[in-house]
């Protein structure tokens, strides 16, 4: 695979990777803090679990948003210049995957604002 192709695939799957990282951090940190009894530690009136989820979610959202913008731009460019079937596929998948990742990352943050940390 050429360097260009690698970058393209990373862009296509980037949203999923952002989601996977957010997922791992949220689940790992929540169960560790709750299991060790550290969940009550608070900063600025917010529990440690909530802060972690908030930061992980915002970071992942930002990443997915940037990836979505880049893939939208790619897709628009490609409309003007005829591209290979592989390029078209990767670009369109990128828009779809990064867009959906945005939604799913948001969904993963929602429980933090509704449920108590160690429910």
């Amino acid at each position: 695979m050429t360097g260009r192709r690698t970058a393209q695939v990373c862009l296509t799957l980037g949203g999923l990777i952002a989601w996977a990282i957010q997922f791992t951090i949220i689940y790992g940190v929540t169960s560790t803090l709750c299991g060790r009894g550290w969940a009550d530690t608070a900063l600025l009136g917010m529990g440690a679990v909530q802060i972690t989820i908030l930061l992980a979610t915002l970071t992942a959202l930002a990443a997915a948003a940037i990836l979505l913008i880049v893939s939208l731009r790619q897709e628009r460019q490609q409309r003007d210049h005829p591209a290979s079937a592989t390029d078209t596929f990767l670009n369109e998948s990128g828009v779809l995957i990064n867009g959906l990742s945005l939604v799913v990352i948001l969904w993963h943050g929602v429980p933090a604002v509704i449920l108590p940390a160690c429910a």
Partner: protein
Amino acid sequence: MFLWTVPVAGCGGVQSALDPAGGDAWDLYRLTIVMTVGATLIFVFVTALLLYAVFAPPERRAWLGTRRTIVYGGLAFPIVVLSLLLPYGLVVMRDTDVPQPGALQIEVTGEQYWWRVRYPAEGDQAEFSTANELIVPIGRPITVSVTAADVIHSFWIPNLGGKIDMIPGRINRFNFTAERPGLYRGICAEFCGAQHARMAFDVMVLEPTEFEVWRQSQAQPAQEPAIPHLARGRDLFRAGGCGSCHMVRGTEANGQFGPDLTHVGSRRTIGAGQFPNNVGTLAGWIANVQQIKPGAKMPSYGSLTGEDLRAMAGYLESLK
């Protein structure tokens, strides 16, 4: 409308999640209805579209394949629906099964194949044990602490809330408030062995004053036999060794293995919700446990004479 009543008839009653008798149970019921009705409507709609896509003339069905239809129907619609359902489900999760201050504490242990029930001391009220029944006052929050003695069981009173696993060596808590007086039925909801299906219990929701009367009488030691026939039953109970497994407070029977029988006569059912409680079923139980509940951890006493059996059953029945 008429057809709708067919599947729904028989869903009310003492053991039904579709007949809620408390706030939490109502929340769960509403969630179930929203999910079921919503899913049905969407399913019917999608199936109709599918049939249309298959059978409609090509020029009429063409719009189904447009980018616009896919983006709105296949992406936007599910995202919106799920984005609404997610917070709704989480709010129900947050608001049900919440421990309340001042809740009545009850401890229930799942055993193969019955329920050990303990009401810890509270104020002037002494602690006591019973089995296979949960009596609670209406309107007061209840916290049931559950665990298991042998294998995993699950504690479920469909009319009053969700299930809670009973795990050996671990205490789980289940919180609810009963808001409609009456008789309900709880069941074991986790396969626990051969007689899992015969592991149920009665739940009685009483007015607070009736509950206090019940609670005080349960804390009393067992009644002395009033007539010779019953005294004979007590002596046979003693001679038969029943007391090595069963507790009858106020007598030397102090077994811990099986259900506390101090007030067994006051229970509605015996055998973990299996038979109405009367002299006949008690006698049948004693003589034939292994035929009617094979694998239950009590031996059959099949060699007792009819007369002895009646005296023993009469004695147990008199333990109100």
